[in-house]
């Protein structure tokens, strides 16, 4: 259909809105990254590429890059393996009510805000005094530990927490994907003598590649942005920055030390990393994201 007046009436205000709130901030942030920017000072010196040079020698920045990548790779891989497995065994169950029941239970943590559940974990699971983790250690005859002072263990705990908080989503998406594959393919392969695991890997997985690509890309994009749980578990980045990630580092640099110019350079780096990862994934998965 054609109706330029109507199109203009809808699109012009929306485009202006998106330019202000979505496009302009990217440019603005990039601009700030060339300055020694502090909102409280009256004069902000132009530094050119100085902030980016500083990135290269900033140890904390590289730790944050490493932790962000470790967090994403480990958590996304674990998430997909676990959720595929759970979705598969749930889809095998004979009764519909039972499927719904387990899916609902697994989804409940996704409904709750991450800050809230992280706080529950902080005290109830990993708390030094009476946390479940230390009680289990106690049962095995080991002394309690302060997990917030550990190094890699804290990051591992945050990964486990994130999986707990987030697997419900992908279980739901994958069960729908598995159920969307016609039964005939599966039965044909079974007649040919393929076992259940073989059938799952060679028949179901390729046939649900669209779901798989969608889930992998969304989960990865999502995990790069994880912030709230790091704020709760390790607001300062943990012991010797062992749980410092880029999002938290941007926040800390800009709103604790008000070094917004440098923080914007870190943000630009995060943007680059997310962009590169999205490109790689896009190539690998042949996901049809583009305009039809």
């Amino acid at each position, binding site marked *: 259909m054609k109706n330029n007046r109507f*199109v203009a009436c809808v699109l012009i205000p*929306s485009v202006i809105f998106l330019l202000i*709130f979505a496009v302009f901030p990217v440019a603005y942030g990039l601009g700030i990254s060339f300055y020694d920017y502090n909102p409280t000072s009256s004069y902000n010196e132009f530094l050119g590429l100085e902030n980016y040079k500083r990135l290269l020698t900033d140890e904390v920045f590289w730790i944050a890059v490493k932790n962000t990548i470790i967090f994403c790779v480990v958590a996304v891989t674990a998430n997909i393996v676990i959720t595929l497995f759970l979705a598969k065994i749930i889809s095998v169950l004979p009764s519909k009510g039972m499927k719904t029941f387990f899916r609902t239970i697994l989804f409940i943590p996704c409904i*709750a805000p991450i800050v*809230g559940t992280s706080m529950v974990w902080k005290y109830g699971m990993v708390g030094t005094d009476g946390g479940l983790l230390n009680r289990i250690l106690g049962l095995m005859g080991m002394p309690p530990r302060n997990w917030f002072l550990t190094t890699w263990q804290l990051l591992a705990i945050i990964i486990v927490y994130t999986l707990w908080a987030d697997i419900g989503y992908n279980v739901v998406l994958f069960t*729908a994907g598995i159920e969307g594959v016609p039964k005939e393919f599966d039965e044909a392969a079974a007649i040919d003598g393929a076992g259940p695991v073989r059938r799952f890997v060679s028949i179901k997985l390729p046939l649900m590649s669209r779901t798989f690509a969608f889930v992998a890309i969304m989960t990865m994009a999502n995990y790069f942005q994880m912030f709230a749980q790091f704020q709760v578990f390790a607001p300062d980045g943990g012991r010797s920055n062992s749980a410092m990630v880029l*999002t938290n580092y941007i926040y800390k640099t800009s709103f604790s030390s008000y070094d917004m110019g440098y923080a914007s350079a870190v943000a*630009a780096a995060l943007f680059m990393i997310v962009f590169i990862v999205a490109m790689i994934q896009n190539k690998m998965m042949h996901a049809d994201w583009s305009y039809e």
Partner: protein
Amino acid sequence: MKKKKNVYKKHHIVIIAFLTVFSLIMMYPMAWMLMTSFKSNADIQINKTKFFPEKWTIEGYRTAFEKAPIAQWFINSILVVIVVTAAVIITSTLIGYVFAKYEFKGKKVLFVLLLATMMVPPQVTMIPRYLMIQEMHLFNTIGALIVPGLISAFSIYMARQFIADVPDSLCEAAKIDGAGPFRIYWSVILPNIKPAIGSIGIFTAMMNWNDYLNPLLMLNDMEKMTLPLGLVIFDTQRVADMSATMAAASMMMMPMIIIFVVFQKQFVKGMTMSGIK
């Protein structure tokens, strides 16, 4: 034949047993939160290994209400969620409709630009957005959460995908009958994408109810905060008061969880539709 049936059942029992244990583990943190919220602080200190409260008490809930403006946080959260969700449903379906059903110059470029804005993580733009909100004099007001949320690129994308599936012939027929573009939107498009509207609404409401980053950046005063930010502030101010902290956390989470359990069919349907699409 009979034997085969038996083998099947066995393997189901194993799965059910496994899923039951797994579900119990998944539920433990939530159950711990609820139980702790009904304990007194002395009870928490003395009976560290006990799961159930020695004596059930709503002391924690009372403290939470007395020491923090929880009622105000609720009102703020609900206000943001209702206004933003209503706005996003209208803007995303309207803009999605234009992209799905109208031909105009620069359509492709605009749509790609729209998709590109979806790719930018909110943390990348948090500094400029914070500065802009200050410039606009929205800082420390509920408007700082509402105004930037009125249009959502992701929701437009979703709406467009669904509206594209509404047959063109329906729109053409309405046009021949003399319906204007807005009339077609209202009486042809909207009634045909009700499930999509539901899932866009659910997504938007959940995201805004749970949002922590934006309130953290944009709000300063206790009375202005939404629930997730309020909870964190409450926790830092009352470190030793586990019972009240968990009571506050329970009050924040339980409404959403109950709504979810009641409407879980619609939730799951909406989610999978957006996912498979």
